[in-house]
Each structure stands twice: as structure tokens, then as C-alpha cells.
């Protein structure tokens, strides 16, 4: 099935649903200058991302490279202060090797804040002109990648929006797309069931190990998952609570296990392991929802399905975020921010199947160019922190 005839064809063969120009700062010290460069062009598809740290980190370097060469990105402007340790030339080379135009400004060499902003805006105009005539090509379902996350959950999340996304995921996978779920910390208790859904026993064991790692990490950080408030809300067991989040994954077989920046090699359902490997080193695995969204996008997600009960408003740089609202009262209060009213199930105005169909249809409409609510409101949140990962092993991915 062809989703759209007008996807943006990149030199590496991948296809995007947006043609963004990314301005990326390579240390917090270049953030302000980068933001000032972007501001007049934020309605022209120019988006701001960056890494704030000054110390080197292989994970951050891989994330930045995957984000700067994401199919939704047409060109890149890198903003360096000059003395940070980020290897800007390596990143620029990788972007150039992907066939995208890339420019770099080093504030210490460009004459400081004001001059760099002026030069940056001039480069943005040039780059926008250079990416304007990117070739178009049909985007097939098997090339389409969708990620999902939940945030600001409440008692309705696990019974409306999450299983609704699960229905949409089932249909996406059935029709050949790739679907990615994550939040291993919230899957504690689902390991056995999840392992049974893996396409191979080896993968099943790895999925269990990923959840065990999350449990160990959170034990060290002192954050349990099952609280008294959960029981008051009607949740009885750890596995029941986790099942509410797990329901986003639907019922398909699980084809593989990814780490941030790994792109699915073929259609199917994938678990993204977002918890760092090794000893607990840099604090919480993900400090907020956007840290996870950035990782889903680094895995190639064209679109993010974000379920919320209490009402998150965030979007993201690079890929549109679709809000699936679990709670009908939240939807009425915040409808300007919400794309799908999944809470209608609670009021007899829809079923899980009808809501799943709505989510599926809207994912395709957004892929065809319709703006999601957060995208139209110009939400472009972005967070990237320190992590450590070992590469995934051969049992993690399906043979293609």
C-alpha cells in the first residue's frame, strides 16, 4: 500500500514525510545563538535540536548523527562554540555523506553572538533554497515507521488510549509498517507474556533481559513502580499496571529489540530498549517524555503516537507527535492540543476498534502532510542527555 506519492526521497533511499532544516547546537554554550537563528524561520520548517553536554559521549554522537540524517530532515546547520569536545567535523562529514547539504558555524571563529546569528540566518536562507526541490517518491507502508509513548497517564490511559494505540499498531504491522514501543521500566511484570510474543526464543530471552535491566536500574535509583495510589485507582497487581502501558504494543508478534538510533531493518513490531547498559552512571534513564521521543525518532520514526490521560502538550522537533487523549474530560478541557478523543469509549461514543481505526487513519493523514495539533502549535521540544549502550547482538533483529 502506498501512503503518499509525495514523500521526500533522500540519497540513501530512505523517505521522509517532512522536509525540515535542522539547526543543531553541539554544546549548551551554542544553544542561544542556534535558537536566535531558528526563530524567524520556525514556521518555514526550521527546527532546533542539540546536545548540551561538553564532555564527549558515544551515545549522544550516534543520536545526533541519526537525527541529522533522519528521513524527515533535508539539510543541517551545525552550531559549535569552538572549544567543546563534540566531534563536529565527524558529524558534518556523516551528514554530507548522506547527500544532505550541511554547514557549520563556529561562534569563536565567526566573531561572537551577533555576527554568528547574522551568518546563521543567511545560511538558513541558502539551505532552505537548496532543499526546496528534493525529489519526491511514493512512501510505501513497509517504509513507514511509527513510535509510541505515554505520558501524563491516569486511570483512563490503560483502558482507552493505550489499547486504542495497540489496535492501530496491529493494523500498521499487519499492513507491513514498523511499529516501535518502549518504556521497559513500565513493562515490569509483562516479561513472560512479552517473551512469548517474540519471533524467536533467543529474542524472547533478550526482551526479558531488557526489562530486568530496567528493574535493576530503578532499584538503584530508588523508584518503585507500584504505589498505593495505583491500588486506589483499581489496579491490583504490578503486572496489571504494566499491562496498561504494554497495551500500546497491541497483539502482533515482536520482531526485534532496538537500542536508540537503530533503525528497524524490515516491517514489524519492535521494542526499543531505552535503559543504558552497564552500571548506573548518568542518573535516570530518561529525564522526561521528550528524551524518549527523541530516541524513537532516532530509530527512524516518521510519526509519534503519544497517549495521555492528564493532558501532556508536548510535540517534538523532526517528527510530528499525535496526541491520543485517554480521558474525555481532559479532551474537552484541552481539545486544542489533542488529536484523538480516545476517552469517548468511556462515554459510549466509540469502541476500542473505532478509536484504533481513527488513530491509524490520522497517522496516515499526518504522513500525507496534515499537521498534528502539537505540530501546528509549533511545539518542538527536544532533550538529549548522557547514556552508555553496548551495540545490539545478532539475535535482536530479524533476518532480512
Amino acid at each position: 500500500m502506498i501512503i503518499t506519492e509525495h514523500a521526500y526521497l533522500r540519497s540513501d533511499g530512505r523517505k521522509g514525510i517532512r522536509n525540515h532544516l535542522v539547526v543543531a547546537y553541539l554544546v549548551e554554550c551554542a544553544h542561544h545563538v542556534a535558537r536566535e537563528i531558528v526563530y524567524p524561520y520556525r514556521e518555514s520548517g526550521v527546527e532546533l535540536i542539540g546536545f548540551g553536554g561538553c564532555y564527549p559521549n558515544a551515545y549522544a554522537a550516534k543520536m545526533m548523527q541519526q537525527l541529522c540524517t533522519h528521513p524527515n530532515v533535508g539539510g543541517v546547520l551545525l552550531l559549535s562554540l569552538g572549544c567543546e569536545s563534540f566531534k563536529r567535523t565527524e558529524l558534518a562529514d556523516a551528514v554530507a555523506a548522506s547527500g544532505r547539504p550541511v554547514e557549520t558555524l563556529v561562534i569563536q571563529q565567526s566573531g561572537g553572538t551577533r555576527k554568528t546569528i547574522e551568518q546563521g540566518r543567511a545560511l538558513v536562507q541558502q539551505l532552505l533554497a537548496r532543499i526546496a526541490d528534493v525529489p519526491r517518491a511514493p512512501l510505501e507502508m513497509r517504509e513507514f515507521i511509527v513510535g509510541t509513548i505515554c505520558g501524563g497517564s491516569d486511570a483512563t490511559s490503560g483502558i482507552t488510549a493505550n489499547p486504542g494505540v495497540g489496535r492501530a499498531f496491529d493494523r500498521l504491522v499487519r499492513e507491513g509498517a514498523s511499529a516501535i514501543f518502549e518504556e521497559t521500566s513500565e513493562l515490569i511484570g509483562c516479561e513472560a507474556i512479552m517473551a512469548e510474543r517474540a519471533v524467536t526464543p533467543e529474542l524472547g530471552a533478550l526482551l526479558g533481559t531488557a526489562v530486568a535491566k530496567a528493574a535493576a536500574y530503578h532499584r538503584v535509583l530508588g523508584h518503585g513502580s507500584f504505589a498505593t495510589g495505583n491500588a486506589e485507582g483499581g489496579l491490583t497487581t504490578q503486572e496489571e499496571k504494566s499491562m496498561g502501558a504494554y497495551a500500546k504494543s497491541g497483539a502482533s508478534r515482536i520482531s526485534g529489540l532496538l537500542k536508540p538510533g537503530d533503525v528497524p531493518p524490515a516491517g514489524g513490531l519492535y521494542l526499543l530498549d531505552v535503559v543504558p547498559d552497564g552500571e548506573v552512571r548518568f542518573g535516570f534513564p530518561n529525564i522526561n517524555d521528550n528524551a524518549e521521543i527523541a530516541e524513537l525518532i532516532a530509530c527512524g520514526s516518521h510519526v509519534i503516537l503519544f497517549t495521555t490521560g492528564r493532558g501532556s502538550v508536548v510535540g517534538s522537533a523532526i517528527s510530528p507527535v499525535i496526541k491520543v487523549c485517554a480521558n474525555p474530560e481532559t479532551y474537552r478541557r484541552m481539545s486544542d492540543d489533542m488529536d484523538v478523543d480516545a476517552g469517548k469509549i468511556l462515554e459510549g461514543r466509540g469502541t476500542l476498534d473505532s478509536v484504533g481505526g481513527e488513530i491509524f487513519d490520522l497517522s496516515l493523514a499526518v504522513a500525507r502532510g496534515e499537521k498534528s495539533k502539537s505540530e501546528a502549535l509549533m511545539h518542538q521540544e527536544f532533550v538529549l542527555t548522557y547514556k552508555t549502550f553496548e551495540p545490539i547482538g545478532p539475535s535482536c533483529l530479524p533476518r532480512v
Partner: protein
Amino acid sequence: MSDSKLLRLDPLDNVLVTIQTLEAGDRVIIEGRQITVPQRLTLGHKLAARDIRTGEKILKYHMPIGSATRDITAGEHVHVHNMKSDYIDTVEMLARHSLGRSP
């Protein structure tokens, strides 16, 4: 046919989820039988969709979320007093998983 105040997340589930607050004394229909709600239950609580025997798995989303610690009759509130977690540690799960699967 069940009540519109209750949601069956999967046809094979043996529990229904309350989708609005039920007050003590409220009546709901479960499998054609009228059940009087014994206590106030806020959104998200579970009622047995049918009789459940001790030790039987509690199925929600067609997935086991624990098992019954005593016999539960249709319409009864299902919670910490009559069901328990079956969650086992991952290390043990992996051992059982590899033992339970034939190569």
C-alpha cells in the same frame, strides 16, 4: 450483554472495568444478571464478568494480571482481597521460559 458503565477490554476477559464511578447500591447488568454494587468504586476498578474459581487466571486485555485467591462470583469486585500477583522474578522467568520451550 453487559452494562454501559462497564468496559470489556477483550471478549475473553473474565473481568469488566468500571468506566464511571459506581456508588454503593447502584445496579449494573452483568451477563444478563442484575448485580447490586456493594461499595463505591471509582473508574478503573474490576468486576468479575463470570464466576471465577480459586487459582484461575484473571484475564484483562486477554492477558493474565494475576490469579484468584478464592472463588469469586460474577459481579463481585475483583481486587487485592480476592486476587494476587503471579509476577515472578525475571531470572526465574527466563529459566522457566527456556525449560518450557522445546527447541
